[in-house]
């Protein structure tokens, strides 16, 4: 059956009707101005990309051919509604490219980039934003406590806020968002991250942000509605055309140039292993640096601040699917996973109910911001040199007194910045109880199987056990060593964990795992704890891999082997 165009457009881009345009107030966050600028942004993005590819006839032809070929290949393999709608157009274009005049090729590139930019560009509806910040906590609270529905509906925010803590210098970020564009770069563990982070920004009194969301997230109509109306731009990872990637990067760059606060997950996708990201995708980060340089060449002194952010869960919604994917043979792992726990309502409900009785089951930590060159910044946004003096960040993009654009230079700066962020992730990560308990049990598995390979250890289901007293003592010892690292600013511990009775820490970790995950991670059998599922234990302990050798005590050999896991991430 053919779906009418208007209905299809609404399903693809659901928006609320508006009789009069929203007029932003002076103190509204930058994103409230977005819809008024949307058309202009799409035009600017399309023009810039077309101009970059239009410097020579050869480049135009190459861009069009690459685009037509990759799109035909993609649509052919998809064989869906989109293919039926678009495949013919790409085939027609492909047949004509070689016969086109330069002017026709230029127009064709411009049409393609405009279409891509339209597809990517988001939408922001202040009504949906206000509804979301009020309703989503209540909705989630109701799912968690259906028996206390009236309370959940009236006090949803309070219920939800008990579940997660927000750390970091929010006041400094509030000041910085007035003098520049903030680019949040969080670690990525779960599809819940963007929801949780959105709530954390609200809780910390910070402005909402624009962010790229995988098109797969737009398949759920409810999620799609919110995504479409809260500033998310669509990233279709299936499209391989270089013009499309250029449009994405340029869109992000133009948004930052115009002062919109942004969010990228620099790891690119959810960490399959639960290890902290140590290899970052530099493309979108580079767009923020290019935005700064581009503004400087136009005499616009708008600062850009990167905010390394860690999102730390005691229980990860999609843990089982993610770790399975990590352990698959090379080439079989999936970059996009559409059928995980995030898409199953019963798993959401089970997850939310499980974490309800925990305080701060998730901690979002906003780290100290840095400029695009990795320098720390003070409260007013001035960049600070290693010697303590303030320096002008514009000096990094100047040569012989003039601000310049230089892709090779900026790529080198972005790589340096990536290294700074990886270090910051380690220092700003907040370790949760489950990571410590899993580490102690995994370390025992390693100790019990000297020289064994990873997969042999993963097969040791229920074969290794520890006296409960011993687990508690080792968790206490591990926590003390980690507190030592925390004092040196090398890592953070969940505040509850830092002060709790170690026996309670162990009990809580077991309780959290068992009852949510479909497989039992570890079993309490009276005086002993049995490591039932080494795979889940490995997943949760992986957060500790960078610190393993520094907190190992007498378990040096096992710690060295655990540290080697870092090479697999």
């Amino acid at each position, binding site marked *: 059956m053919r779906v009418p165009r208007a209905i299809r457009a609404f399903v693809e881009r659901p928006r609320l009707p508006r009789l009069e345009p929203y007029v932003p107030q002076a103190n509204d966050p930058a994103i409230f101005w977005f819809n008024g600028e949307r058309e202009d942004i799409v035009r600017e993005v399309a023009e810039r990309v077309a101009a970059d590819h239009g410097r020579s006839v050869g480049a135009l032809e190459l861009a069009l051919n690459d685009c037509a070929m990759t799109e035909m290949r993609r649509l052919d393999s998809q064989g869906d509604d989109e293919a039926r709608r678009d495949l013919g157009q790409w085939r027609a274009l492909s047949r004509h490219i070689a016969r086109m005049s330069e002017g026709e090729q230029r127009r064709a590139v411009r049409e393609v980039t405009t279409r891509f930019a339209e597809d990517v560009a988001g939408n922001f509806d202040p009504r949906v934003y206000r509804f979301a910040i009020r309703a989503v906590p209540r909705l989630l609270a109701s799912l968690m406590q259906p028996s206390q529905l009236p309370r959940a509906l009236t006090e949803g925010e309070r219920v939800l806020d008990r579940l997660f803590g927000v750390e970091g210098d929010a006041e400094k970020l509030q000041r910085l968002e007035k003098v520049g564009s903030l680019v949040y770069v969080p670690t990525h563990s779960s599809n819940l991250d963007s929801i949780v982070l959105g709530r954390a920004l609200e809780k910390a009194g910070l402005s909402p942000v624009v962010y790229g969301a995988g098109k797969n997230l737009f398949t759920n109509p409810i999620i799609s509605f919110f995504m479409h109306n809260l500033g998310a731009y669509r990233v279709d990872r299936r499209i391989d055309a270089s013009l499309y990637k250029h449009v994405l990067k340029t869109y992000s760059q133009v948004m930052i140039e115009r002062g919109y606060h942004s969010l990228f997950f620099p790891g690119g996708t959810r960490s399959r292993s639960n290890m902290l990201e140590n290899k970052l995708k530099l493309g979108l980060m580079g767009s923020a640096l290019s935005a700064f340089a581009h503004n400087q060449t136009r005499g616009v002194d708008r600062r850009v601040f990167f905010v390394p952010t860690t999102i730390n869960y005691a229980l990860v919604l999609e843990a089982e699917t993610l770790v399975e994917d990590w352990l698959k043979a090379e080439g079989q792992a999936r970059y996009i996973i559409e059928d995980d726990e995030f898409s199953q309502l019963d798993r959401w409900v089970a997850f939310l109910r499980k974490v309800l009785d925990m305080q701060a089951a998730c901690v979002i930590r906003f780290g100290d911001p840095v400029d695009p*060159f*990795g*320098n720390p910044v003070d409260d007013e946004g001035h960049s600070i*040199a*290693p*010697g303590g*003096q303030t*320096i*002008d*960040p*514009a*000096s*990094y*993009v*100047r*040569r*012989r*007194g*003039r601000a310049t654009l*230089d892709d*090779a*230079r900026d790529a*080198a*700066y972005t*790589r*340096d910045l990536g290294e700074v962020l990886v270090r910051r992730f380690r220092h700003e990560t907040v370790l949760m109880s489950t990571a410590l308990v899993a580490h102690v049990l995994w370390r025992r598995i390693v100790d019990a199987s000297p020289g064994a390979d990873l997969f042999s250890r993963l097969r040791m289901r229920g074969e290794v056990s520890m006296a409960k007293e011993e687990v508690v003592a080792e968790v206490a010892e591990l926590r003390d060593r980690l507190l030592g690292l925390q004092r040196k600013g090398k890592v953070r511990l969940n505040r509850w964990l830092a002060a709790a009775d170690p026996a309670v820490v162990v009990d809580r970790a077991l309780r959290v795992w068992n009852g949510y995950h479909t497989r039992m991670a570890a079993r309490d059998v009276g005086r002993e704890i049995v490591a039932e599922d080494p795979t889940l234990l490995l997943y949760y302990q992986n957060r500790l891999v960078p610190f393993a050798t520094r907190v190992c005590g007498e378990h040096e050999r096992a710690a060295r082997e655990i540290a080697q896991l870092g090479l697999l991430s």
Partner: protein
Amino acid sequence: MSAPGEGRELPSVGVVGGGGFGQALAQALRRAGRRAQLWSRRKLDIEGVETTQELADLKRSELLFLAVPSTYVADTARQLGLHLDGEHLLVHVSRGLIGDDLLTLSRVLRRTTPAHRTGVLAGPLDAEALAEGQPTGAIVGTRFPEVAQAVREAIGGDALRIYESRDVVGVEVAAAVVGYLALAVGVGQELGVSPATVAVLLTRGMAEAARWAPSLEAKADTLYGLAGQGDLLAVAGGDERPEVRLGRAIATGTSLEEAGKAVGAHIEGVTIARRVHAYASKIGEQTPIAGMIADVVERRRAAPDAMAALMARQVGTE
């Protein structure tokens, strides 16, 4: 930094360090027609070169060469960094690696100065050849093409071919390894070993470095390029660099202190071999040649014994 020249005249180039290599760089700059500023702790007078004892004076320069021994790099860079900003280009010429973790000097510069456009100049380039303008070549390790371009613009030319590598750490590691292997060449010469023995020592010395260097994120291939194997060819060819002379003096039984005075230069290799050996052991790699060089330098073992012990080791595949 003030806007130098605005295209009318190329900006001046600074050299930090008045030792042999620093002075040679200043002379090469003068010969290339560039305005050279040379900073030294002691007062120097070099014709055609602006000398200073104030680091702040160097902020007028766009490109700065750091030519001080690695043990002084962090302190000097920290003081220099107070006068720099992101526009400065900073290139060091040291063969050092710092501390037990073999920290490279480009990382030290990154941590101590606001200049991020950094690099390292290495390869078969000795002070004498540089000062006299003899035909030779060098390599700049940098992630920033404009740094390599600035170095070429400053001292490159018909007599000095300057190649470029993005593997900064690889170039720095290669330079450090050549530093201690050159000591071994001097020792070997004093013992009267054959060129074949030297060839085996140097080739295997570089091969063992290729095992631990990747753990510092250096590419093994870089060790076999101009900064490593290329520089070793100059050593084996008899370039009489200070490291070789020091190795000869050590082999005669002269104390390290006296040998150092006689050579009249700071030799990085004397401490690096030991730290390389310890570092490699820590990550599970064997470095018998570095270990043996360290033993000889520290007089734990006589040079002939060390050579014999190396030759007696079990032979494996290459």
